[in-house]
């Protein structure tokens, strides 16, 4: 039932257009054959005899009014015949529609476009009365896979498609191909709503679809392609790694990464311009103090599970082990190194005092050895392999070490035998201060207190090449802190003691800051504790396809640590999210996986490529109907003007006036605050009043507050930006520090929702000034109305405010500005 009249214009109900042919006939009948006159019985008939019509008005309805009305009628007929502009290429009416929808995580950014296109296609299918076969490409769980796709009516497809959403895992073309091939005996017209990425098996699927019939493939603009985010805490900071489909780099686009805290607040964001030329690693700069609060990083503006990177415990508080007996020491605590280390690190890290063997077994991210020189071979081996796997070993010098430096293992630089006492009777020197940290040092930027001196240290062997190894040095250039990577880990050596006996360092704030930086450098070694690898972790929180966290459903299976470490693929069984059990949380992120994101460029023969949003149907019906309505109003206006000039009977005039009134009223429907208004109100101080619906009172309020604003600007430091009239039912109150509420007799009590809003406003420090407008006790009806309004609010009883109070002063200002109150009764304040 589709007849094409114009290029790009079709009518869904073309038969109705034949009614247009009736219009000239109607014209003819109206002009040539007027209706039979009514018979009116009138006793005063005698007086009608011989009356001649006056020549002051035309004898017929003017032809142009008739033409206008016929035009209105024609437009209505046209609208009812369902004109559709730009109909899509059109589906053939004999073959079922096969709709392939990409719904992996990478479809999230284009999901809206996909849904619109799908709706559009289903609408066409409905018109053409052909069944629809829906196929989704995301991997499905085993039970779902057993449901074969089936043909359904267009209406059913429309409701089914509402239930489809992007899944938080990858698209799986390979498993879809056999299912397509199984259907090869049937003929379909296929439409593929792709996410613009050539996932693995793309060509195979395209060929399978195109085997019998042509395929149209929709793809999004390159800006809308999905991105996967990976975050790594490295020595240099928070490294941002983006997996981008656009590997050709033809389209540089800005990418904003947000750091999100536990409560969903954005703690920081940074925008990167990714392009082909810039392959340098990207870093997320953020204060160290905030970094610990980040629970996830996400890409702003790019929805999708791949754009969300959840942080698990390996990113959180560092677990630091101190190889010292802890508190159970015989010595006085204030001279013990472990005491200072504990006090410095306790607020920022999980601390444990234990033997080296136990600490390495716990897989701490940082181990501190205060003044330890020799250790048993087994411990040494454990320590070495731990550092090799990524641990950060921080050593402090001390009297013990100073005497046993020969072949000392696991130090960044060789040391010289014996300590160097800088301040002694024999040396004649003075205790030295610390040099400013060089910009390359991870400690750069820390402020060095002036009164800190180092009295004694262990010297590095000057024969050694020191470039890049010195993180801090004394004034004379001797290294104070040296470091060296070791395997995946890091060795750091502080050439003085962790106790106050060799230096003032442990007594200073610098010590704390320094240790925090060092702790932040450490990261959990990749290897996990033995014995935990096989522990199965239950899903705690999973992401949906758009990257929104949600509760895991029953289909999500537990996962083991080793599986995650082994890079298990996300899928229906293991969506990305947080998995864990008490004491252990591990994140499964899409971004850490090797995703094959290849931009879709070439398609096999037989596949037609189009972009989304190019062929939306556009129904003209509403516009034509609107035009007809406007013309009808015009007709009314013309008729009413004629009626006024021709003194037509009063009744008709009244109706006309009424209709015009309704028309004008519809033009001036109450305007509510738009988001822009809210933005405006939030940005500056606005005096607000409640619109009562009584025009006089409202304009009085507005003018009064305007004057008050002027008075405030000229007399006080407050400079209101303007006056805002607010509708208590629909507008936000939060932006106004003070709201003026004239209470009228006719005002309706606020709805429960509005009452809640008022209550919230009052509970959070808002002030409402109710005005009875004639002084208390004089306007009984308004008082009762005020009771009605405030009766439902949980506020302490009102009491008269003292005259010295700000409100009273304000009120006096107000009276002056309004100048219309005979006997003022003061504002009220809330009883304390």
């Amino acid at each position: 039932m589709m007849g094409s009249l114009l290029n790009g214009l079709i009518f869904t109900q073309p038969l109705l257009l034949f009614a247009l042919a009736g219009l000239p006939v109607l014209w003819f009948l109206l002009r040539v054959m007027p209706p039979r006159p009514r018979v009116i019985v009138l006793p005063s008939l005698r007086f009608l005899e011989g009356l001649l019509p006056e020549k002051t008005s035309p004898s017929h309805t003017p032809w142009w009014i008739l033409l206008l009305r016929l035009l209105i009628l024609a437009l209505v007929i046209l609208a009812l015949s369902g004109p559709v502009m730009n109909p899509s290429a059109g589906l053939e009416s004999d073959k079922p529609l096969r709709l392939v929808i990409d719904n992996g995580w990478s479809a999230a950014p284009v999901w809206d476009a996909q849904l619109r296109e799908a709706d559009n296609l289903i609408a066409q299918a409905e018109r053409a009365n052909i069944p629809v076969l829906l196929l989704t490409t995301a991997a499905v769980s085993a039970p779902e896979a057993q449901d074969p796709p089936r043909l359904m009516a267009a209406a059913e497809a429309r409701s089914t498609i509402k239930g489809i959403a992007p899944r938080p895992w990858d698209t799986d073309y390979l498993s879809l191909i056999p299912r397509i091939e199984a259907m090869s005996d049937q003929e379909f017209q296929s439409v593929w709503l792709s996410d613009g990425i050539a996932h693995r098996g793309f060509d195979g699927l395209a060929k399978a679809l195109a085997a019998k019939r042509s395929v149209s493939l929709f793809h999004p603009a390159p800006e809308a392609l999905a991105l996967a985010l990976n975050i790594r805490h490295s020595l240099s900071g928070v490294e941002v790694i983006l997996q981008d489909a656009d590997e050709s780099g033809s389209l540089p686009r800005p990418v904003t990464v947000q750091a999100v805290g536990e409560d969903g607040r954005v703690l920081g964001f940074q925008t990167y311009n990714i392009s082909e030329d810039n392959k340098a690693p990207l870093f997320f700069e953020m204060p160290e103090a905030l970094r610990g609060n980040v629970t996830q990083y996400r890409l702003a503006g790019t929805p999708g599970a791949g754009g969300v990177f959840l942080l698990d415990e390996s990113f959180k508080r560092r677990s630091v082990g101190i190889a010292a007996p802890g508190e159970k020491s015989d010595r006085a605590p204030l001279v013990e190194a472990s005491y200072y280390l504990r006090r410095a690190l306790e607020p920022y890290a999980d601390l444990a005092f234990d033997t080296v063997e136990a600490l390495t077994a716990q897989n701490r991210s940082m181990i501190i050895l205060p003044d330890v020189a020799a250790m048993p071979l087994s411990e040494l081996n454990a320590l070495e392999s731990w550092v090799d796997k990524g641990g950060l070993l921080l050593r402090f010098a001390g009297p013990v070490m100073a005497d046993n430096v020969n072949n000392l293992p696991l130090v960044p630089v060789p040391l010289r035998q014996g300590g160097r006492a800088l301040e002694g009777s024999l040396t004649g020197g003075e205790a030295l201060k610390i040099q400013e940290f060089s910009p390359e040092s991870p400690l750069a930027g820390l402020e060095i207190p002036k009164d800190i001196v180092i009295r004694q240290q262990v010297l590095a062997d000057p024969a050694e090449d020191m470039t890049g190894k010195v993180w801090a040095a004394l004034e004379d250039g001797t290294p104070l802190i040296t470091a060296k990577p070791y395997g995946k880990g890091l060795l750091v050596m502080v050439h003085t003691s962790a106790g106050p006996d060799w230096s003032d360092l442990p007594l200073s704030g610098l010590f704390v800051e320094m240790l925090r930086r060092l702790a932040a450098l450490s990261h959990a070694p990749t290897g996990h504790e033995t014995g935990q690898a096989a522990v199965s972790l239950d899903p705690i929180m999973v992401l949906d396809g758009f990257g929104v966290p949600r509760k895991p459903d029953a289909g999500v299976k537990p996962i083991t640590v080793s599986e995650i470490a082994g890079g298990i693929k996300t899928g229906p069984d293991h969506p990305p999210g947080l998995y864990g059990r008490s004491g252990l949380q591990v994140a499964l992120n899409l971004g850490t996986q090797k995703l094959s994101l290849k931009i879709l460029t070439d398609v096999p023969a037989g596949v037609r490529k189009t972009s989304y949003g190019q062929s939306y149907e556009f129904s003209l019906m509403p516009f034509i109907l609107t035009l007809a309505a406007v013309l009808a109003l015009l007709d009314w206006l013309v008729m009413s003007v004629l009626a006024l000039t021709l003194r037509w009977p009063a009744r008709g005039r009244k109706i006309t006036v009424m209709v015009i009134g309704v028309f004008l009223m519809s033009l001036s429907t109450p305007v509510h605050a738009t988001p822009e208004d809210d933005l405006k109100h939030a940005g500056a101080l606005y005096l607000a009043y409640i619109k009562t619906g009584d025009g006089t009172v409202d304009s009085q309020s507005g003018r009064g507050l305007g004057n008050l604003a002027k008075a405030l600007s000229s007399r006080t430091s407050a400079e209101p930006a303007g006056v805002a009239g607010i509708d208590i039912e629909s507008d936000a109150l939060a932006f106004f520090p003070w709201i003026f509420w004239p209470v009228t007799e006719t005002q309706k009590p606020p709805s429960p929702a509005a009452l809640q809003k008022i209550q919230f406003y009052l509970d959070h420090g808002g002030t409402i000034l109710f005005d009875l407008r004639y002084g208390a006790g004089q306007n009984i009806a308004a008082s009762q109305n005020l009771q009605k309004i405030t009766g439902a609010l949980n506020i302490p009883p009102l009491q008269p405010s003292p005259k010295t109070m700000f409100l009273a002063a304000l009120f006096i200002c107000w009276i002056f500005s309004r100048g219309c109150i005979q006997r003022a009764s003061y504002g009220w304040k809330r009883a304390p």
Partner: protein
Amino acid sequence: MPALLDMIRGRAERAAAGLPGLVMRAEKIAASITHGEHSKRRAGAGEKFWQFRAYDPSDRPQDIDWKQSAKTQHVFVREKEWQNPQKVMFWCAGAAGMDYSSDPATPTKHETALVMSLALAILMTRAGEQVAALGAKRSGRSELAIRALAEHIVEEGEAHDLPDPAALSMNAGLVMAGDFLSNLDYIRACFDVMDGRTRQGIIIQILDPAEIDLPFEGRALFRAPGLGEHDPVKIDHIGEIRRQYQERITEHCRALEELCRQYGWLYFFHRTDHDLAELTAAIWDSAAQHTGKGVA
């Protein structure tokens, strides 16, 4: 023309069936008007008590009010108010045009005329005057007379635009209610004859709003009610002749009023969609003043 007679008979019977209701309405209107206005407000031959007065030798002894005299030392005469009973004859136009109402909500002209006549009749009987339908033989001032009047108007009423002047008794008052849409010359001829016979005439012209305003639109074929001596009139655009029509009918009413003024009769105008009681009260009021003045 038996058919015509049958038609009129049927109409009369229908009206008579509603007569008690009409009488009730008339009584209600009459009750709402404070009566006694018709009194002469001076002592004289009447039935109502006027005042006690000290006995004068010129008074007749039988006028002495012994009861009042016994209360005091003086002899009192009971004076009665001077009233002059008179005969008032009522006529309602009964032509087919009277049985017309443009809107079901408003009463017909005939009904309005009847109710107003009855209301005035009731008021007049209360004031001690005798009422009768024009052309009826009996007159009286009782409830029965009212009934007889109503029945006469409804049943014996003739399908005429104007009354028969010969039926008017000498020196009787005359109340005429009708639309008086006839040619003014006919009306004048009729009134000329009656003027010699009546002491006082009251003309109540009753018109339907549609007859005054012509509130129709478009094309219409106008037809006179009844069997009609008039040919139908076709109007193409009523709106265009409305003003002329209104001028014509207003002119006619003005001429009628002028005619009444010439005879010294009272002229009243009533639209059927206006309040009946109000006009009745006005008529009663000015009629009483008029007669009072006339006699004094």
